[in-house]
């Protein structure tokens, strides 16, 4: 399965892109994403530890199953205001 990963702030700067594609095994869950992301994009490094994952526009449950074509967003610690 292939999903789209949107990047913001620090993560966009680390990878130099607004979005990337990631292949994930069938049956993968949101909680499986961090190791897959670091494996494919080592530049993310330690920044991967401290982020929230949005799945198709909503903050996700770690046990949510991913589907082909899903869109996730990596949300580094926010700093608005």
């Amino acid at each position, binding site marked *: 399965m292939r999903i789209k990963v*949107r990047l*913001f*702030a*620090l993560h966009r700067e680390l990878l130099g892109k607004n979005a990337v594609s990631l292949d994930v095994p069938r049956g993968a869950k949101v909680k499986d994403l961090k190791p897959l992301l670091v494996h494919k994009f080592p530049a993310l490094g330690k920044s991967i530890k401290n982020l929230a994952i*949005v799945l198709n*526009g909503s903050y996700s449950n770690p046990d949510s199953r991913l589907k082909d074509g899903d869109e996730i*967003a990596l*949300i*580094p610690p*926010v*700093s*608005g*205001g």
Partner: protein
Amino acid sequence: MIRIAIQEGDFSIDHELARIKNPRGKNGAVVHFVGAVRSKCRLVALEYECYREMALKELKKLSNAATKKYGVNDITVIHRIGILRPGDKVVLVLVGAPHRKEAFAACEWLIDNIKKTVPIWKKEIKRKGEN
């Protein structure tokens, strides 16, 4: 009424205050908070970016929650993005309520939670070579 906006341009506090309609004096208190870029050593500007769809959704969710929690009538939240310099306004939170206690409490709760949950980020731009 809830009004949410994320925009590059500046906002007018007077204009936003005037938008809060007050039929039959339902709002005994209108409170507003304005966050601005604070000047500090070597800071040229702050660059704000957001995940727009999600940020709008979260701002709406927080405003609905504040309405329910504090029983307020009107909420306006405007957050600016782009490059903002010291002194520029960044965020407006405006609350109209029957009484000042709820208006102040809702305004504080909103800005505290906006800073915690809404996907907006800022990056410091410092003088060359100091980024």
